[in-house]
């Protein structure tokens, strides 16, 4: 608790949260996977805490270890070191009790394609040992809530990607578990389905469910999570609320777009004005410089670029985003990791399963 709530003292709403218990805890989780090129430390000493009724966003790129953490917390995988509890129960000593209090919706959408939406939910209800009447009522309730009632009696293989995700999420909620794990719930969804799913998750949180959510999308963590743990290479490298993380990066961002061929020159000019390293994106000819000093810096920049003979197509200031946070903390972007460093990505991709 202490770790997550340090520095939240002034926020009354948070203080009220502090009084609640931790629904999920993890201490020093380590998981090592063997791989062809030696070992991959998918988790390298991860501590987590999710306060009852809140949403923790586990934010990180592919291969950061997010999925491994979720698999340990949902009893699918045993850690090599460390311990974890869900609802006060140790995942290693009484996994069956943990399973009774959790719902899991994974990144693969574990929907049975040949069963109808209703049958999928009925099956899960029966496997939670609800009476068959109760399972039936609950299935209908969820199908209505998730806007699937029209397709309830069609095999799930006829569903769109968004519908499958909703059905998978509904599956996690069948037994009304107090703690829900959502592993990359919107990865691969089109923007409209994504926003639809966000609304569903927000509705869930408003009923007091505790949620641990993993995502590689900064806007998703920003929108849904009460607190965020930034994960990179098996470690939590920062934590706090979205605002706290942004404040940690400090200042504002000066964003400049220039004419082709002038990126290098502009980078030099901005480097003299910036409070930290300038991020240059060659293909969009956009430069982002952390600055402090408000709008005066903007004027300085325009003048300096003009004197250097750089044609400015667009210039502006913005508050730091979580991507800036990520860049500052890790030296690389959060979402642009897929293409880069093939060897490392391959090894870590394996570890993320």
């Amino acid at each position, binding site marked *: 608790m202490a770790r997550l709530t340090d520095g939240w003292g002034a926020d009354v709403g948070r203080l009220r949260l502090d009084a609640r218990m931790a629904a999920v805890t993890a201490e020093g989780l380590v998981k090592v996977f063997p791989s062809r090129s030696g070992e991959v430390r998918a988790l390298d000493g991860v501590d987590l805490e999710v306060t009852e009724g809140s949403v923790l966003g586990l934010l990180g790129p592919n291969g950061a270890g997010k999925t491994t953490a979720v698999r340990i917390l949902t009893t699918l995988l045993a850690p090599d070191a460390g311990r974890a509890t869900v609802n006060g129960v140790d995942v290693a000593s009484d996994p069956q009790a943990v399973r009774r209090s959790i719902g899991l919706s994974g990144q693969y959408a*574990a929907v049975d394609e040949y069963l109808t939406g209703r*049958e999928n939910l009925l*099956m899960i209800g029966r496997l939670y040992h609800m009476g068959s009447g109760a399972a039936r009522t609950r299935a209908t309730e969820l199908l209505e809530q998730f806007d699937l009632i029209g397709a309830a009696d069609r095999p799930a293989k006829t569903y769109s990607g968004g519908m499958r995700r909703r059905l998978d999420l509904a599956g996690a909620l069948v037994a009304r578990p107090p703690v829900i794990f959502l592993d990359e719930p919107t990865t691969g969804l089109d923007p409209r389905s994504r926003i639809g799913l966000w609304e569903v998750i927000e509705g869930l949180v408003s009923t007091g469910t505790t949620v641990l959510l993993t995502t590689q999308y900064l806007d998703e963590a920003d929108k849904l999570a009460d607190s965020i743990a930034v994960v990179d290479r098996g470690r939590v490298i920062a934590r706090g609320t979205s605002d706290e993380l942004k404040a940690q990066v400090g200042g504002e961002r000066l964003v400049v777009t220039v004419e082709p061929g002038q990126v290098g020159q502009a980078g030099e000019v901005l480097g003299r004005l910036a409070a930290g390293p300038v991020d240059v994106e060659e293909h969009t000819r956009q430069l982002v410089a952390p600055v402090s000093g408000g709008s005066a810096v903007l004027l300085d920049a325009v003048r300096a670029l003009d004197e250097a003979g750089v044609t400015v197509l667009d210039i502006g200031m913005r508050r730091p985003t979580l991507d800036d946070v990520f860049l500052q903390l890790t030296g690389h972007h959060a979402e642009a990791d897929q293409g880069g460093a093939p060897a490392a990505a391959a090894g870590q991709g394996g570890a993320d399963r």
Partner: protein
Amino acid sequence: MSDLAQSLSDTGTITWRNITRLRRQPDSIFFGIVQSIMFVLLFAVVFGGAINVPGGGDYTEYLMGGIFVQTVAFTCATTCIAMADDLSRGVFDRFRSLPMSRSAVLAGRTFADVAFAGITTAAMAITGLLVGWRTHSAVLEVVGAFALLALFAYAMLWIGAVIGLSVRSVEVAQTAGLIWLFPLTFLSNAFVPLESMPGWLQPIAAWNPISSVVAAVRDLFGNLPPGYVPPDYWPLQHPVQASVLWCAVILAVFVPLGIARYRRAASR
């Protein structure tokens, strides 16, 4: 609910799931039936006159026991692929995160697949009857033969399940589930009499579980010529006992192995 009642209820649910899946894929049932019919016709027509049955019996009658056993043995490839498929789709993650019995997923799979084996066996029996196969024994013995086929199919399915849970992809499962069945079924008395094999091969074929089951089924259907003397190997002289024993051994090894694999499988 007690543990046992819970376990039975979970097994029932998973069996229902797999049978429902099967019903929604009528093409797979169709091709299963076509394959059975094809086997019976091909062997009966192509090999019909070429092979001498010891004691001078009818080859079609002699053959049917072998075809029955081969086909139910091959059902284990279906289990293998289905297991690998569920594993790759994350369905097992969902199951393993539920407070359900650990053994139910495998038990439910094997029960559904043994039902599928029942359908293909019925198709073979009907085709066999059409091409001249008859039983010459008491009704109870015929029932016993089918019961033994079901037991053997069930034991073999667990081997398929273990392979399906051990391989890394569905594509590998398609080959790995099938390839070992060819030497297993052909190094037996399923299609040719033991006596026609080279001497060094005979003990291997005699102790092959397939041979015991084939011999037992032939015996129970009354498909052996009168005065037939089984080769001088214990499993062939006591084929029913040997078959039941083989099934028990296979289950004793592969059931615990399968459940252990299932627990660990998704953690790869």
